[in-house]
């Protein structure tokens, strides 16, 4: 059975290779091949899962050693896999949700000429992410990590003819690179500290290592996680990444990529447990991002960007939980899985809405769509209820546990974190209700926009047929798109309950991550009740603002905070002023120093030598008699000097 582990990666990798190298003759069937191989990977995952369930809970980890990559004495890099409960959870999520997104893409990308290539990239994405989660050492994890970065670059910039998409892809790649540097430094530090980077030895040796070194490694790992998981301060790429096709957003936000940071921190739990300072940093990053993303999500009118803000915020919850140590690891992963379901569902729903609305993304030009897209409405609605934590649905169980764990951290810190998490829950309820109301309820604002278009109300039929300014005809999406949404909706509804009954998920992950209940100052019931209370407040606020009153089609100017949030809380402006301008000034001053100082010294030396020799050259006038004079003069001076020395 263990020999199957490698095939998890091999199947989608094979798909990527065949689809990308296969050429045009695969255009007709390529997408089904890609989907089939993703599904094959899922089937292998399920087989391994069943096999794993048969084992005793402490002997569930499976290993496969494929080959020695760099066998040098003192430096052993292996391509070896380790599949334990944590990896298993990720494998099932990635392949399961990934396969559904593949199926959805078949319909979504139907009219795209480059659909085969798109599926090749999707398969590459899956392969890289699977490699990341089943690697048994940090170096191989790094390979997967970079692979994810590459695949995300290719997919975000898939419509590269749009300059905005090309820029967004570059931005995502560059910001990720900053995080990657963190991971590579962490791996180097590990190697110098422990002499190896295999998970087992590294994580066992943390007890005997100095705290300073562990803190350094932990902070570098956090930097890496910030890059991939779009946490403050490396969050800026996530919003722009919406330029990619919607299935890509779903894949990046739900199953792959952004979850990598949470995986990294949970996997390196032993390091963080032994470095409280690094843990504090993790918690701080999580808490800040949680609020940051939520605020951004409140202000965006672009449905995908609002969801992107939401992802940032939800990942913030996970990072926060992972930073809490053994109290939180399990819940971080649990929220990750439930989030995988409902966020994939929400994004696919958003894609379905866009599909029916001529690729319009501005929610202010939606409204009242529930009549026209019943399936999308129901699945999106279930995802919505799950993400705001409606009692009984997935998000409720996982988020509630994280808030509880935050309080259980103890002391002032616990109160601050718990309060932040509760506030985040309220804002989540607010912005998701806003998305829901703007899209599916209210008056049908898309009718207005069509007549209001600059082309006169007597829009000639020619404009209609061209499709420009034409009134959209919202319609339900084809089956290949709705079926994955229905499946994900089931996950959004039932996954949380399934995991929570009898603490199944806790028992499942406990052997890997450890678990600790902590001592909460509040009882579980109090936390649950307050979570529900803030949820009601958030929904009510959104209803008051967007449900009761008609929504203007053109966004009002808004308060200072709203305007800042529309600009992603000035993250790009900050980056531009501090990093871009700063970098420009730095390079300019370096160039100046180079020109004036370095070149000055070199050129000055050359010029003075040249000038001096120019003068000396005049002595060589070619007249033998003047040479004779200098000879006599020189001799006279020598003799005089000799005599003088004698006299003295």
């Amino acid at each position, binding site marked *: 059975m263990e020999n199957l582990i490698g095939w998890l990666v091999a199947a989608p990798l094979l798909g990527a290779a065949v689809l990308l190298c296969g050429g045009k003759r695969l255009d007709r069937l390529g997408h089904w091949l890609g989907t089939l191989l993703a599904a094959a990977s899922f089937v292998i995952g399920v087989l391994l899962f069943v096999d794993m369930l048969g084992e005793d809970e402490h002997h569930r980890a499976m290993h496969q050693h494929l080959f020695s990559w760099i066998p040098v004495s003192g430096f052993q890099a292996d391509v070896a896999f380790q599949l334990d409960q944590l990896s298993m959870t990720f494998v099932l999520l990635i392949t399961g949700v990934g396969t559904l997104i593949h199926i959805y893409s078949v319909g979504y990308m139907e009219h795209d000429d480059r659909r085969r290539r798109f599926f090749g990239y999707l398969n590459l994405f899956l392969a890289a992410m699977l490699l990341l989660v089943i690697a048994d050492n940090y170096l191989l994890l790094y390979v997967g990590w970079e692979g994810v970065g590459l695949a995300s670059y290719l997919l975000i910039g898939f419509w590269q003819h749009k300059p905005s998409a090309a820029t967004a892809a570059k931005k995502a790649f560059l910001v990720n690179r900053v995080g990657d540097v963190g991971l590579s430094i962490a791996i180097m530090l590990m190697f110098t500290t422990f002499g190896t980077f295999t998970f087992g030895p590294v994580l066992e040796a943390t007890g005997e290592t100095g705290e300073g070194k562990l803190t350094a490694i932990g902070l570098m790992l956090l930097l890496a996680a910030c890059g991939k998981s779009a946490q403050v301060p490396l969050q800026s790429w996530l919003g722009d990444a919406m330029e990619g096709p919607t299935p890509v957003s779903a894949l990046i936000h739900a199953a792959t990529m952004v979850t990598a940071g949470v995986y990294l921190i949970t996997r390196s739990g032993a390091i963080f447990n032994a470095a409280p300072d690094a843990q504090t940093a993790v918690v701080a990053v999580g808490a800040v991002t949680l609020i940051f993303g939520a605020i951004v999500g409140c202000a965006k009118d672009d449905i995908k960007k609002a969801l992107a803000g939401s992802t940032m915020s939800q990942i913030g919850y996970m990072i926060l939980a992972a930073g809490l140590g053994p109290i939180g690891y399990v819940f971080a992963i649990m929220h990750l899985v439930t989030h995988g379901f409902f966020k994939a569902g929400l994004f696919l729903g958003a894609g379905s809405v866009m599909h029916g609305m001529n690729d319009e993304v501005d929610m202010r030009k939606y409204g009242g769509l529930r009549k026209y897209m019943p399936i999308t409405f129901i699945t999106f609605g279930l995802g919505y209820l799950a993400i705001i934590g409606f009692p009984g649905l997935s998000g409720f169980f996982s988020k509630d546990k994280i808030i509880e764990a935050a309080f259980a951290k103890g002391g002032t810190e616990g109160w601050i974190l718990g309060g932040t998490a509760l506030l985040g829950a309220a804002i989540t309820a607010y912005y998701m209700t806003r998305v829901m109301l703007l899209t599916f309820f209210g008056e049908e604002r898309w009718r207005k926009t069509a007549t209001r278009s600059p082309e006169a109300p007597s829009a000639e039929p020619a404009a209609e047929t061209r499709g420009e300014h034409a009134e959209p005809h919202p319609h339900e999406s084809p089956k290949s798109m709705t079926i994955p949404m229905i499946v994900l909706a089931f996950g959004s509804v039932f996954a949380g309950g399934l995991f929570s009954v009898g603490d199944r998920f806790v028992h499942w992950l406990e052997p890997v991550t450890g678990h600790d209940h902590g001592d909460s100052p509040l009882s579980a019931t109090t936390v649950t009740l307050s979570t529900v209370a803030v949820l009601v407040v958030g929904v009510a606020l959104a209803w008051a603002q967007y449900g009761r009153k008609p929504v203007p089609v053109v966004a009002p100017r808004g308060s200072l905070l709203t305007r800042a949030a529309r600009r992603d809380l000035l993250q790009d402006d900050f980056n531009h002023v501090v990093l871009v301008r700063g970098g420009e000034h730095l390079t300019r001053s370096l160039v100046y120093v180079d020109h004036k100082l370095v070149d000055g010294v070199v050129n000055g030396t050359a010029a003075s030598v040249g000038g001096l020799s120019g003068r000396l050259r005049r002595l060589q006038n*070619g007249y033998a008699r003047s040479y004779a004079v200098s000879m006599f003069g020189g001799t006279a001076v020598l003799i005089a000097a000799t005599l003088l020395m004698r006299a003295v």
Partner: protein
Amino acid sequence: MNPINYLYLAALLFTIGAAGVLLRRNAIVVFMCIELMLNACNLAFVSFSRMHGNLDGQIMAFFTMVVAAAEVVIGLAIIVMIFRSRHSASVDDASLMKL
């Protein structure tokens, strides 16, 4: 006769030779003046040899004569060649070795 007088004579001859080298333009004359300076040196050597009562100076004079003979051979040959090619024996005319 006091040998110091020979030294005065040598100094006088050397000065005449040096002045000739510096002031005259005719290569033959310059050449002769060089010979004059060499011979003044020889005279000084021999005088010092006499004054100090050893033979070192006289041996040195022989060396000088050998060098002078070799120099005459080469120097005259060069002067003749220059005269042939440039129809001039002036040392100032042969001033091509400059930038």
